């Protein structure tokens, strides 16, 4: 039987892997908890609450290092919070069987991101559209690799907002950060540089998770003995993961990512099929 201590010590390596692969701790932990017999909605609700800790913890250092674009983040939060509230409300209403399949399907979309080779070069500064100029969204950061300041423009904030509404919906429904999806939207629609994109997404995830948690709070799904160890463990793991991330080779990370996602999809599909 799973105890709080074993869950805590399980959550540390899971948070570590979540940070390395960009999947986030909850995406990995929820299928494992389901495998161990925890009801899926409870696992989702507690995953959502623990993400507030992981995301806010790492966002704190990214904001201090001035990589995350706080203005872009706050603009996009309007969309992710609404999405997350809607998503979490849907989860409290629908059958758990559907959730297994949604979870597996959403994980499958994260392959889209990993297929593309992550470009390391700083992006060309395109001319921003009127909306981005009106909102003053452009930014700059100091890139450690190039040892210089990179200025960038932002494009299509409203389309990006639409993408974020979907990201928030999935996040709220599945109790995860949906970081890979958010990064895809930010890099491809808003044209944020990769580093700005991943750190800004992290910043947004904390707020999205709060919106989702606000729904789970009165659904009676938040189990203290479950989310307590999850929050502490995944955050510790994520902090450790963030430290070694820059030292890992991209190829190793890709292999790890594909292996873990495939395993998680199989587990959720199996659970879904066997509960039909």
């Amino acid at each position, binding site marked *: 039987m799973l105890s709080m201590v074993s869950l805590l010590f399980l959550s540390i390596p899971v948070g570590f892997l979540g940070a390395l692969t960009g999947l986030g701790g909850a995406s990995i932990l929820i299928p494992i908890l389901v495998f161990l017999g925890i009801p899926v909605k409870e696992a989702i609700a507690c995953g959502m609450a623990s993400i507030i800790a992981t995301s806010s913890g790492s966002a704190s250092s990214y904001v201090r290092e001035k990589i995350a674009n*706080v203005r872009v983040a706050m603009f996009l939060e309007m969309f992710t919070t609404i999405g997350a509230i809607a998503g979490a409300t849907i989860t409290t209403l629908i059958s758990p069987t559907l959730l297994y399949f949604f979870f597996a399907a959403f994980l499958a979309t994260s392959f889209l991101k990993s297929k593309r080779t992550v470009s390391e070069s700083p992006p060309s500064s395109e001319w921003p559209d009127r909306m981005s100029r009106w909102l003053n969204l452009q930014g700059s950061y100091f890139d450690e690799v190039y040892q210089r300041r990179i200025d960038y423009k932002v494009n299509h904030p409203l389309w990006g907002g639409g993408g974020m509404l979907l990201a928030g919906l999935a996040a709220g429904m599945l109790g995860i950060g949906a970081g890979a999806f958010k990064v895809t939207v930010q890099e491809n629609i808003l044209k944020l540089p990769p580093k700005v994109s991943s750190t800004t997404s992290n910043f947004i995830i904390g707020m999205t998770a709060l919106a989702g948690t606000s729904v789970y*709070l009165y659904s009676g799904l938040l189990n*203290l*003995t479950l989310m307590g160890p999850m929050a502490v463990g995944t955050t510790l793991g994520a902090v450790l993961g963030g430290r070694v991330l820059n030292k890992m080779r991209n190829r190793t990370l890709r292999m790890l990512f594909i292996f873990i996602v495939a395993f998680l999809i199989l587990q959720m599909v199996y659970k879904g099929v066997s509960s039909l």
Partner: protein
Amino acid sequence: MSSPNRISGGIKFELAISYLLAAGVVSSLILVAAGILLFYFQFGNLAISEKKVMFLQEKNFFYFLYDLFRDGPSHGFSLWVMTLGIAVLILTPYARVLLSVLHFIREKDFKFSVITLFVLVILTLSLAAH
């Protein structure tokens, strides 16, 4: 016009957010971890429990906070400490939006005052109106 001012205000604001998030997460996780330890002393085990008292359930987060302090540790000190930790966790991003609204109003940045206020209202409604 006031661009140097705005830049230094922006940097101070980002630092304030950074410290706020760090302080919220660290204090919340310390409370939760302490709660787990106290749980062991109170119940003699650390089993993940499906008992009703282990679940947070409240119609309104702000009543929930009020009850937390009014009722005190009615279900045992350990659960109270853990619940307090979760409450601090929930308040961390909430305080971050509140701080952002105040910052943008002070900077007279009308557009972002409205944007952050919108998020604050959505979250407040979702935390309160059920």
